[in-house]
């Protein structure tokens, strides 16, 4: 084929294409609009889910609060909705949640911070690249497996030290939840610490600070709001954690602050009721929605606080 032929041929092809783009353009524009609409609908489903959650919780809770006063709900010291003489004091469940959460923080705060400091200040790139997936794996373990671990590994171990520890107790549940949230806490705090600009570190090194002094006195305080965000978000996860407490902490709602005792959390209570079969529409059925609403409001507060803190450290630099 001579170059001349190619020229003619190519001109023909380009012309053919140009001529065919009259009516199809309109069709193209409609197609584009249609696709955009479909994608928008996909994005709006997430809003629909939120509406669904808030709607269902609010609707059932309204029915609940028609029969139980808010004052009783917040101040009664017992939670016995299924007894002949029912009490609806959410405090008994909140205390269980609070105790397990605090225990979990006792594990997660030191461990998460150490890992974060190590990863961001000490570890080489290759180590970091291999440790992060390992931590991710830890957060991929199903919670029910952690529950098994708490009940049949941690508790028996603790019982060796502490023979009078009951089989169900908040301590081992809390410890295991702490381990569960470590990957999350450490990855968010590491991000925060790595966001601290290099020149701050260099400044410290230039003054003769050791790596440890730099990490603890310069990087850690500078990243404090980000690190706090990590814990606040970690707390929110611990509060919402269900299976570990349902398996290992017991199902008995008790107003106690002693981690060595068994007690039900809000989530464990919902599981317990769901396992039985309470008739749809009964007050017992509605209690789980009132509990769920309380749970959601508490986690929402922590989530919002966490996001505000996270935003703040992003703004600083």
């Amino acid at each position: 084929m001579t170059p001349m032929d190619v020229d003619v041929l190519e001109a023909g092809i380009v012309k053919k294409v140009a001529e065919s783009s009259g009516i199809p353009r309109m069709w193209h524009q409609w197609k584009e609009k249609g696709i955009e609409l479909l994608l928008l609908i996909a994005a709006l489903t997430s809003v629909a889910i939120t509406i669904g959650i808030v709607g269902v919780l609010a609707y059932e809770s309204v029915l609940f609060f028609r029969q139980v006063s808010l004052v009783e709900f917040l101040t009664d010291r017992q939670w016995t909705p299924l007894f002949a003489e029912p009490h609806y004091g959410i405090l008994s469940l909140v205390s269980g949640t609070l105790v397990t959460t605090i225990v979990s923080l006792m594990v997660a705060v030191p461990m998460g911070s150490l890992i974060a400091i190590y990863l961001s200040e000490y570890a080489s790139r290759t180590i970091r690249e291999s440790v992060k997936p390992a931590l991710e794996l830890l957060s991929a373990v199903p919670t029910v497996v952690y529950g098994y671990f708490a009940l049949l590994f941690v508790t028996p171990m603790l019982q060796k030290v502490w023979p009078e520890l009951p089989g169900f107790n908040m301590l081992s549940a809390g410890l295991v939840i702490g381990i569960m949230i470590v990957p999350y806490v450490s990855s968010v705090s590491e991000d925060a610490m790595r966001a601290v600009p290099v020149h701050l570190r260099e400044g410290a090194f230039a003054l003769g600070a050791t790596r440890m002094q730099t990490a603890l006195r310069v990087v850690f305080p500078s990243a404090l709001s980000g690190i706090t965000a990590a814990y606040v978000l970690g707390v929110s996860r611990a509060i919402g954690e269900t299976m570990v407490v349902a398996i290992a902490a017991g199902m008995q709602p008790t107003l106690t602050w002693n981690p060595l005792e068994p007690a039900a959390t809000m989530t464990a209570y919902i599981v317990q009721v769901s396992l039985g079969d309470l008739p749809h529409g009964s007050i017992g059925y509605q209690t789980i929605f009132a509990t769920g609403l309380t749970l959601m409001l508490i986690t929402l507060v922590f989530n919002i606080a966490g996001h505000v803190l996270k935003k703040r450290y992003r703004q600083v630099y």
Partner: protein
Amino acid sequence: MSIALLVLLALLGQLIFDGLGRLSWQFLSSFPSRFPDQAGILSAWVGTILVMFLTALTAIPLGIGAAIYLEEYAPKNWVTELIEINIANLAGVPSIVYGLMALGLLVYELHLGQSFLTAGLTLAMLILPMVIIATREAIRSVPPQIREAAYALGATKWQTVRDHVVPYSMGGMLTGMILALSRAVGETAPLITVGALSFIAFLPHPPWQAEFPFISLQWLFDPFTVMPIQMFNWVSRPQEEFHVNAAAAGLVLLLMTLAMNALAIIIRARFRKRIHW
């Protein structure tokens, strides 16, 4: 870091120690039973696969669609802002709350019952924010210059997305989706809430039939159980023999999720090698 690995090893060790002896063909091919040594996880693993199928079928197209909209189409206005805030908040809602919502809405309001369909949709809603967030991150890794190159040639928005943005972010998207599904595999609480049965001694209707149209949707409305529910049921029994079953089931479950995670890591590494921006 060594602590993390240690914990993982302890977990695995404990499960292997307790449950490996119980793992057998009989265990995988039997229904649950009152007799611990005859019980198995047939209905549970079949259930997990079916529920995951429904979850993936729902959450993946919705999640990708939403992510593409937010990254490539969304104008800066209050609707977009609302969707953004909403997704960030949804990701922090405890999983059991999704279960409550599904119980009130899907089971009773929409009369889907305590079925595979309900379970699949519940988990799909649960992982949707995760899928969206992961997909958006993957899409953002495609540099704007590539989009500009496509637009400069006269490509429409959809052509740019279909021919460039999606294929080039496929690695990240796949990774995110597998991780989200691996979360869903181990998810227990919301399914207990919608009313999973832990004692199912039959398989759902097969998804095919002899007559036209040969596909049967009957199974969607069958009662369901899944691996973590089965394990939970055995763990919460007082008899030690059942704990052995729980360990064996946990081992299978853990292997499932670890395999999915390993797959995700491999895919991520593969795609990273293939495309350097």
